[in-house]
């Protein structure tokens, strides 16, 4: 069964005809070519597929794209502007919070949402915010430091 949906992806309106059984992750990667959003476990356990839906981080592998109809989606491609990395991306770079990079889009988007809601999070609040995102490389210490470096 097909359905026409409208997404606001990184500020741009996209009208698409999709199969109702497609996940938001599949639509982003395959229909829109936005491969910055990663497929890890494909079952809600790792956070590699994190995007912001109306500003809130969600696992896009665990969400049918039809359920995002009419909503704003932010992916990692939406952060850098005019060839300039977003300050969160810069902080992750500088603090060594990126190794293989597979978890980074998710970690960075979760950070964006956290700092928008709470510009002054404690370390405990930072850990809670990234609790759904698994990183196999960094051991989390540098990621937490990168986020802390953004807190005034």
């Amino acid at each position, binding site marked *: *069964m097909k*359905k026409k949906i409208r997404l606001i992806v990184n500020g741009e309106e996209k009208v698409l005809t999709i*199969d*109702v*059984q*497609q*996940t938001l992750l*599949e639509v982003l990667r395959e229909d829109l070519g936005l491969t910055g959003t990663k497929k890890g476990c*494909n*079952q*809600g*356990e790792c*956070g590699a597929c*994190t995007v912001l*839906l109306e500003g*809130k*981080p*969600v*696992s896009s*592998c*665990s*969400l*049918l794209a*039809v*359920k995002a109809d009419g909503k704003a989606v932010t992916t990692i491609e939406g952060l850098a502007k005019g060839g300039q990395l977003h300050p969160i991306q810069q902080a992750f770079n500088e603090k060594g919070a990126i190794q293989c990079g597979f978890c980074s889009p998710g970690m960075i988007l*979760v950070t964006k949402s956290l700092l928008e809601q709470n510009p002054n999070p404690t370390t405990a609040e930072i850990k*809670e*915010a990234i*609790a*759904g*995102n*698994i990183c196999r490389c960094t051991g989390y210490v540098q990621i937490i430091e990168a986020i802390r470096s953004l807190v005034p």
Partner: protein
Amino acid sequence: MRLLEFDYFEAENLEDAVAHLKKYNGSCQIIAGGTDLLTALKQRLYTPACLVSLDNIPSLKNIKEENGAIFIGAMCTLEDIINSELVAKKLPALKQAAWEVGSPLLRSLATIGGNICLNTRCRFYNQSSFWRSSREKCFKAGGSICHVTNKQESCVATFSADMPPVLIAYGASVRLIGPKGTRLLPLRQFYTDNGRFPNEILTGSGEILTEIEIPTPSSQTNSTYCKFRLRNSIDFPLLGIAVLLILDKGKFCKDARIIITGAGSAPIEAVEAREKLLQQELEPQLIDAAAQIAASEIHPMRSSFVSPRYKREIAGVVLAEALEKAGGIRE
């Protein structure tokens, strides 16, 4: 793994949704947040011809207090519950349980209705179809043998949702709507203790859960939820215990409820441990005695990843912790 094709129907009202479920005659399911359902569909545990979404029915998203009871719509997300001031003030253990479900990335999608309707889980069943194909189909998957008990036609899959034990401790009821009209059912009666068809809806009643009704707890009520799992995030509970105490003068146990998830095919009430507490002063020795009793009251099965003996051991530890917390003996 991709999802197989299905039809998708966005109901405009509950009558619509019930009629649609009926039309597909069993091959149709409600999709709430979809956080559990999508994985189950990818694993080919179910292959419905149609999914019915309740997203367009705003009345299912309310949280309110009226005439001495708190009403929570089935489509409220766990994040809505965590952010609700009413819940934080009147039902603190429910907020705690919601906060411990899965991860933040799921809680903004996952609903309380979906949590209540969650199927039981088993290490032989909740796997990809490829993984499952390495053994004979188990009873729950449509075969005849149970790999846990080695018996024919039995299923002892584990009930593992976090919200129901707390809701049962608070005395919650659920409102269901179906082809025969609506009914209000005490939540504990919603569960069948049958690993294969663990609740009224999964037995094929064609009903939809619309609302949860909880009598507003008295000011003497102390409640908490303690969850045990190997990682402090993402994981389902290996064991979770909800405790509600009605304390007189802050220490005499006028009433108590102890409800355990992760220890059987339904939420289990530790009846004898409760008896031990009644009319007694809550102090460390009594807590230890009640914890030991609770550990012997449960009969967990090897459908979970840890051994039954381990779970019984943990049950005592977790219950003691929960009683100390609810009794104000520790933070």
